[in-house]
Structures are given as C-alpha cells and as structure tokens.
C-alpha cells in the first residue's frame, strides 16, 4: 500500500519534525533549516534538504531517518540534496534558537558573510553574561566554536554563524 492519494503536507511536516539533529538532539531539522521544501509531484513527495557543513556526518543519518520514517508511513518519496543556495544559520527558526539556549548552546548571530571576524559579544547561555572569551573557533562539532564564561566560570558552545 502506498499512501499517495491526497497530498497531506501538514502530516508530512509533522512526521519530519520528529527527526532531530543527531549531534544536537534537542532541535529538529525544520528548526535547523535543513529541510527546505516538500512538494507533491507525480504522486510523489519531493523532499529537499540542504547540508549544513560539507563533511557533516549527521547529514547521512538525517537522510536515512527521513527515508525510514516516510517508508514506515507508506509514503512514496524522493530526497533531493540542494547545495545552492548554501545553508546559512540565518535559516534557523526562533524556536530552534530558543531550544539551543536551553541546551547550553548560544545560538548563531546574524551572518555577515564576511572574512573579518565581526562578532559582537557572545552571551553565555547559562548566566547571559557577556564576559565571555573565545577559546577556539572549532568546537565539538563542525558547527560550533568553543567559549568560556568568565562570570559563571562555565565552558560553553557557540553555534557558529555561516
């Protein structure tokens, strides 16, 4: 049985919102801006996704999870990976940013797309202080940098803006 009778976009989005980033399990692929579009065409759902970082190992897992959840719900579908326009942290939703703070990660600032390091002060996700220092631009995963809060003496991740 293949469930293609009526295009049920809301149902599809609801299903796909269950898929989380394996490296930040608090936040789903819609909030992250990875899921770009769902179209119904020729009795098939076309799911467009955009990779975050080129070498991000989570992308393959996310793709597999999309396949699995749609197959289990009898949808006929195709997954399309778009590189352009390139993923930007500006696509992250406000809900997603809120969840990041709750899990101890400072959300990305607006992306200036410039080579200079034009960051405003980064707030600590725990105490909101701006007395923070950058320890390394490369953190526990490709998408994060590593900071330290001098106010509450806690290390934390900042979701890099790209």
């Amino acid at each position, binding site marked *: 049985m293949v469930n293609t009778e009526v295009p049920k976009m809301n149902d599809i989005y609801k299903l796909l919102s269950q898929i989380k980033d394996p490296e930040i399990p608090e936040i789903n692929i819609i909030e992250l801006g990875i899921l770009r579009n769902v179209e119904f065409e020729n009795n098939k759902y076309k799911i467009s996704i955009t*990779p975050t970082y*080129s*070498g991000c190992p989570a992308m393959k897992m996310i793709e597999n999870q999309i396949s699995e959840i749609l197959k289990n719900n009898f949808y006929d579908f195709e997954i399309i990976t778009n*590189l352009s326009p390139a993923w930007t942290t500006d696509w992250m939703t406000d809900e997603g940013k809120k969840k990041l703070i709750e899990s101890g990660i400072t959300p990305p600032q607006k992306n200036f797309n410039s080579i200079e390091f034009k960051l405003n002060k980064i707030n600590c996700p725990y105490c909101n202080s701006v007395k923070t220092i950058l320890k390394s*631009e*490369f953190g526990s995963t490709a998408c994060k940098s*590593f900071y330290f809060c001098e106010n509450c003496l806690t290390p934390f991740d900042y979701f890099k803006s790209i």
Partner: protein
Amino acid sequence: MNLKNKNVVDYLLQLGDDRLILGHRLSEWCGHAPILEEDIALANIAQDCLGQATFFLNAAAEEIGNGKTTDDLAYLRNPNQFKNLLIMELPKGDFAFTIFRQFLVDNYTFLLYQQLQNSKHNQIANIAQKSLKEVKYHLRHSSEWVLRLGDGTEISHEKSQNALNELWAYTNELFNENEIEKKLAEENIAIESFKLKNEWLDKVTQHLKTATLKILENKEENIFNGRSGKHTEHLDHLLSEMQIVVRAYPGAKW
C-alpha cells in the same frame, strides 16, 4: 565521453583531489596535535576538506557515468591518476609546516572558490559557493596561527621560517598554466589559476611580513607536476594507507 566532458571530468578531479589529499594529511593530526583545541580544529578542517572532495568527486563520477562512483574515484585510482597539486601531498611535517601549508593553500582556495561561484557549470558553482563559507573559517584559523608562530618565540619563529622556506618552492605550481583550465575558461566553466597569482602574492606577502617572516625566492625548478599525474613518492605512501581497506576487501560493507 566527448572531449569537453573529459575536460570537465579532469577539472573536477583536480578540484576534488586537492581537497581529498589535503584533508587526509590534516586528518593525520587527529590525536597528535600539540594542544586539544588544535586537535579538534584540524580534525574539523579535515572533515570540511573531505566533504568538499566528496562533492567534487561525486560530480566527476556523474559526468563519467557508466556506474562510476565517488568511492571508485577516491579508492581505486593509482597515484599517476591523481591530479592534486604537490603541496597537498607533502608529509604533514611539524605543526608549523602544517599551519604554513594550510595558510598558503587557504589563501589560494579562497580566491579560487570566490571566482568559481560564477562558473557556468552549475555543480562547480554550487560547491564553490557552499565551500567558500568553510574556507573563510579555515583561512582565519591559519592566518591567526601564522602571526602567533612567526611573531612568537625565537623557536616558533625559526620553525616557521624553515617551514615557509621549504613550502615556497611548491607554490609556483599553484599558478601554472594548464591546458584544461584554459579550454574550460573559454566557456566560463573554469578559472585560469595563474590569474589569481598577483592577488594571492599580495595577500600572502603582506601577512607574512606582519608575522616577521621572509620569503626566500627559490630558483629551483620543480620537475614534478601534480596536475598531469607526476607526483612525489609521498603520494604513493599516502594512498597505500588511505586505500588499503577497500583494496584488501573489495566490495566490503560495514
């Protein structure tokens, strides 16, 4: 495959092999970097390079057709079929050597991808646009370290200057004229890399000067040529390690 396709494939292999081989060299630092933050940084950068290589080699495999896969291109070609620049395959050396190679290559890659964003070949343009965002982070990372090491202690300065002296002889090759680039540039698919040289030289020279380092012109002509498959022996060793599992267990899945 017609000649134009063959040129596009060769060009995609150039772009992909540069990132694959450099990414592999960077990955050799995993667990060995002088400090934990750098271990993580170099592994992150390696991951970006390998991801970019995957995109380029995947595009090459699609152009070739006949069921050729990205993995075939990465794991089942011989050294003389690789088209990377020699600077990418040199052994990782000490930390200064890795950082200075990265700095010279990041500046080159930044200028190259900036131009390739406008390539008439859709995939090349899209990959360049995506990768440029990552290369900006890499360039900032290596540039900061060049200052820190060059204008640091007596020992770090000396190690930096030695690394730079050794690497400089390999930078000519970045801007060699190349028949494939020339042909594809006529169709606005590729960029002739020699056209990037002046801007690259300005940027690099200025930054090295700030880092209190000197460029020693090396008159020696390099007899090898990575783009045409003539490599140093270092690539043989690198590939024999990178490819061993796939070659020892053909078709293995895990």
